[in-house]
């Protein structure tokens, strides 16, 4: 009575024309510490449409998690979202929104799950209560109702004996179950967008697969969009529609998952993919390909292209000017090599497999 059922939602989305559910434009999240400024998120732009799964991929420390936290306004001083950043969710700019209004959006419009399910759950509170809390934050229902909803959510995420389980404490559950609880909590109010920050990194490989398929299934049922943040390319390949590759605080490549993963334009993406050995190919038995050098520091991004120091194709222009995202084939890449379209369309010797 107080909230919609799943089925009605799923039907509604297919009739609408695709309008960006979330539009992030030039997001800059900087940290001001005394005399230094750190810029871990330095001009990130992407869009997510309703029902879509967008993967945000990159190494640890490239600013992916901070991007997610920025969207929800969970950046605490000394960090802040800089002026000029725009995060438009369902037509409303979240930047500069009052804390009260942001709290409305969190959990109800946008849900989020985190990497470490053990520490992300309150250790002294039963899991059912934590889910019910999310419900009570956004709906005017009785505590009994909220608890029933919590049990229902536990059932939906595939936890057996949910009535009993709801009274368990987090440390009594396995890692996979805890992550399911997190998912239950995040989806309790049926948000239109789920941000998943490294949801499977802390889990065993077998459980990973279960969680991913659970998320896909729930997405289908709820008709929601997912922003999947991870450094695991395998997961992206499995579920993502669109992909954005992040490096040094910026998006360096963007496009549909199929085109980007099959034919990466940006040298970084290419190197990333090449370093993942595929069973049965020559890469499997030889030495792992490695990207030389290290990620530059967010305290002092280098001038020109930020990937230049580690790029095997770097040439003069790379040091002078930083490339914007240039259209290349079916995707977009921030590389001067793509100035005239896709790299692969030109001379074959540049095509590296």
């Amino acid at each position, binding site marked *: 009575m107080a909230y919609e059922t799943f089925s009605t939602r799923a039907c509604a989305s297919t009739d609408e024309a695709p309008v960006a559910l979330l539009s992030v434009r030039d997001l800059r999240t900087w*940290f*001001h*510490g*005394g005399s230094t400024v*750190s810029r871990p998120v330095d001009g990130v732009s992407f869009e997510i449409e309703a029902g879509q799964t967008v993967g945000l*991929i990159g*190494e*640890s420390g490239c600013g992916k998690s901070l991007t997610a936290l920025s969207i929800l306004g969970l950046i605490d001083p*000394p*960090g802040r979202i800089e002026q000029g950043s725009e995060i438009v969710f369902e037509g409303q700019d979240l930047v500069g929104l009052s804390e009260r209004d942001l709290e409305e959006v969190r959990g109800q419009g946008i849900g989020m799950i985190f990497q470490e399910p053990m520490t992300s759950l309150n250790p002294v509170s039963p899991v059912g209560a934590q889910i019910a809390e999310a419900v009570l934050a956004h709906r005017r229902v009785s505590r009994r109702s909220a608890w029933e909803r919590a049990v229902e959510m536990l059932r939906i995420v595939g936890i057996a004996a949910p009535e009993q389980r709801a009274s368990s404490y987090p440390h009594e559950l396995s890692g996979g179950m805890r992550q399911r609880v997190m998912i239950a909590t995040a989806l309790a109010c049926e948000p239109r967008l789920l941000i998943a920050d490294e949801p499977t990194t802390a889990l*065993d*490989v077998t459980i990973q697969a279960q969680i991913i398929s659970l998320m896909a299934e729930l997405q289908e049922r709820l008709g929601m969009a997912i922003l999947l943040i991870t*450094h*695991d*390319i*395998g997961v992206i390949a499995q579920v993502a529609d669109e992909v954005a590759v992040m490096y040094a605080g910026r998006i360096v490549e963007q496009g549909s998952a199929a085109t980007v993963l099959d034919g990466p334009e940006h040298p970084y993406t290419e*190197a*990333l*993919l090449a*370093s*993942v*050995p595929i069973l049965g190919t020559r890469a499997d038995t030889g030495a*792992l*390909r*490695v*990207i*030389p*050098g*290290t*990620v530059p520091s967010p305290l002092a991004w280098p001038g020109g292209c930020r990937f230049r120091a580690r790029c095997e194709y770097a040439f003069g222009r790379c040091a002078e000017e930083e490339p914007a995202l240039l259209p290349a084939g079916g995707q977009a890449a921030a590389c001067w090599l793509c100035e005239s379209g896709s790299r692969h369309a030109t001379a074959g010797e540049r095509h590296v497999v």
Partner: protein
Amino acid sequence: MSARITKRTHDADESATADAPQRSAPRRRIGTGPRGIVTAVRRSSNVRIGLLIVTALFMAGLLAPFLTPYSPTDIDLANTLQPPSAEHWLGTDELGRDQMSRLLFGARVSLVMGLLGVTIAASAGATLGLIAGYAGGFADSLIMRAMDAIFAFPALLLALLVISITGPGITQVLIAFGIAGIPFYARLMRGMVLAIRQEEYVIAAEALGGSPARVILLHILPNAMTPLIITTTMAMGLVIVGLASLGFLGLGAQPPTPEWGAMLSGSQSRFFTAPWLLLSPGIAIVMAVVGYALIGDGLRDFLDPRLREYR
């Protein structure tokens, strides 16, 4: 281990970055080594104020003979209970002794006693802690139980108990507080040993047949510096107050030794006749304690990871 290896093959992250941080030099938790202390001094105003106060006190004690023409023990029955004047800046006590010189020489007593007490506690405690942490097993349990038992005895009560047997005196108080302080140091050192023991390079050293004892000592020392200093400042404060408390009860330093607490012991009955006697020793004690507390707290707050600026 194998699960971790198979996970690695999927991670673009791990395979892409060639340079892993090298781990050869003794690992220092940020802020615990000598450099951390210097930074703390530079950054924390609390620490600076504390250092200022403590240094002033030490100077006062050191230079006491030069700062006053009177001796702290000279009795002058013609001039008892004089209020502060040009001749006696802080007045005189019930035996005509100059309050100011008693105060200055009293600094010596308190500070020296503090240092001695802390030294006893630190040396005995650190040794016990190292043994407990390294030996483990029965020795560890035994030592820790003893530490708990000592910890169970409030220091003041321990001192009272010792005094009830041996009679009052400054040495007794010292020993009592020294013993009372042992558990703090023992726990600290034991904790450090246990933590460092689990670090990979120690296990590696052991696996290679080397002696982990030397490795542990080498790595403990730099890391233990700041916690040791913090514990010591706390301990100094406690010993000084403890000594003063017992002095106030007449059970610590015996006359004619000028001791701040003892100087206060008659003041209660003299609210009316000589209230100035009440203020100066008390303020001196407070300054000493506050000085040490500021240093210790400032350092401790500095080590606090949450308060550190974003790096």
